[in-house]
């Protein structure tokens, strides 16, 4: 008697789970499918000759390249410091580094304007130095760097912390200086974690919209990135907007795949 009740309870519960999963997965899949369905897929290769698209791709490539160089260049030492040294205020520093992850991009945008705009906190200083940032390419670089850097730095901190501290210690004992230890011991051992973090920050940077449109504006050839291009073409050439959307879906898929590859590539971290 009890067994029968358990069996039908089991089946009922599984059915409920399947139903919820079905709804959720369908909801997530429909916009992606619709995008590929509605977009003029055959015209996508010819897009690369369209001057509007070329401008969009150039701006996106340039700004993200510089932003990623900045993120890795400044982010790696920052992550190393936060991962291996303890100091007063370390918790605050880590919180500050993590903040842009939860901060709404629109807030980042208005914050950047409040800081670097002509009437902003540093506006007077910048004006005197003859530097203008808002609504220029550097504004895009700053917006992308601001929102994407925590994705790299957080992962880098974890990657550095996962290295067995005996190994760099051994390297120091054997006579290597701190820089050589960092370059020849720590970096190779944490490489997969760093790469995984970079992939996420790269994807976040490419996908940035809110902070960019508020701080850098949406001007073709100067500040219009892929996402801003979609927004512009929503009111212009809707088919073009769909096509750019398809491109970004493919790019995002490639990013996800790369991330999974790096995460699963594990190097030995203990002796």
């Amino acid at each position: 008697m009890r067994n029968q009740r358990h069996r039908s309870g089991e089946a009922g519960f599984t059915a409920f789970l399947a139903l919820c999963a079905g709804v959720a997965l369908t909801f997530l899949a429909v916009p992606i499918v619709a995008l590929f369905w509605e977009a003029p897929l055959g015209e996508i290769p010819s897009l690369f000759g369209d001057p509007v698209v070329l401008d969009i791709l150039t701006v996106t490539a340039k700004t993200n390249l510089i932003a990623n160089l900045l993120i890795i260049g400044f982010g790696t030492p920052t992550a190393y410091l936060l991962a291996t040294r303890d100091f007063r205020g370390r918790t605050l520093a880590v919180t500050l580094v993590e903040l842009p992850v939860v901060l709404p991009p629109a807030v980042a945008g208005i914050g950047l304007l409040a800081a670097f705009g002509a009437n902003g906190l540093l506006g007077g200083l910048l004006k005197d130095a003859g530097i203008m940032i808002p609504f220029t390419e550097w504004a895009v670089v700053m917006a992308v760097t601001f929102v994407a850097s925590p994705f790299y730095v957080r992962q880098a901190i974890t990657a550095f912390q996962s290295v067995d501290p005996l190994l760099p210690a051994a390297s120091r004992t054997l006579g290597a200086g701190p820089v050589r230890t960092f370059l020849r011991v720590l970096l190779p051992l944490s490489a997969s974690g760093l790469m995984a973090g970079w992939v996420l920050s790269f994807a976040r940077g490419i996908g940035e919209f809110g902070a960019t449109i508020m701080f850098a504006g949406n001007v073709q050839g100067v500040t219009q990135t892929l996402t801003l291009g979609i927004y512009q073409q929503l009111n212009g050439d809707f088919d073009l907007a769909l096509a750019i959307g398809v491109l970004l879906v493919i790019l995002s898929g490639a990013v996800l795949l790369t991330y999974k590859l790096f995460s699963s590539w594990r190097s030995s971290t203990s002796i």
Partner: protein
Amino acid sequence: MPKQFRLTRAHRLAASGVILIILGSVALLLAGTRSTEATNVYAAASLRDAFQKIDGSDEIAYNFAGSGALRDQIEAGAPADIFASASPDEPQELFANGDCERPVTFATNEVAMLVPAGNPSRIQTVYDLETGNRKLAIGVADVPIGSYTREVLSGMGLLGILETNTVTEEQDVTGITSKVALGEVDAGFAYVTDGKIVADQGVRIVPLPAGSQPKVRYQICAVTRGGADTVGAEAYIKKVTGYQGRRVLSEAGFGLPPHPSPDGRR
């Protein structure tokens, strides 16, 4: 036994050299593209077709958006050389702050109600919207088309239709025209010039009663900021207010002031 690797000074120099080369090429990439010499024209979205016809060369870089947004950008220090607005308010505000030269009226326009191809909601006059429950696209209050629309409707005592019909408030006229052209709304309030631009997508103009039109005045001015291209700006304004510019504007459906009015008061 394999030779031990040593990070020598030579290696470090080589690495720094590679990094410098990468950074240098990046800087060149940045510097070597267009529009450092182009004149930057920030213009109301309703001028997108006409202005590009007046001067579509590489010398001019356009930024079309709602006039209010452009004013905000210029106030925040955006690198504009020219500002052309669909209403005198924005340029006069900038002029009062010393951000631009004295504005000049160069065109007029008329508010129009646009319906999608086939007019699916059977809207024959603006009074049909009194029954409510249609899908209407208008401009936000801060943008000239939004304020003109409210002026027209309040003049006819029909301001209430906005509450029962509006489904979207757009930042500029392209938002309104695209929603109408796509059939996402039953009607939208934009300019007659916009109706002409999207006529090839089947969009039709529903005429507003005579005498209901507000005074729609477009003004243009040269932005004063460090590093502004004043020569290019002056040349561009001459083009817009000159014979060829006026012809293009008139063909697009804009009205023209009798002659360029330098005091901005006409």
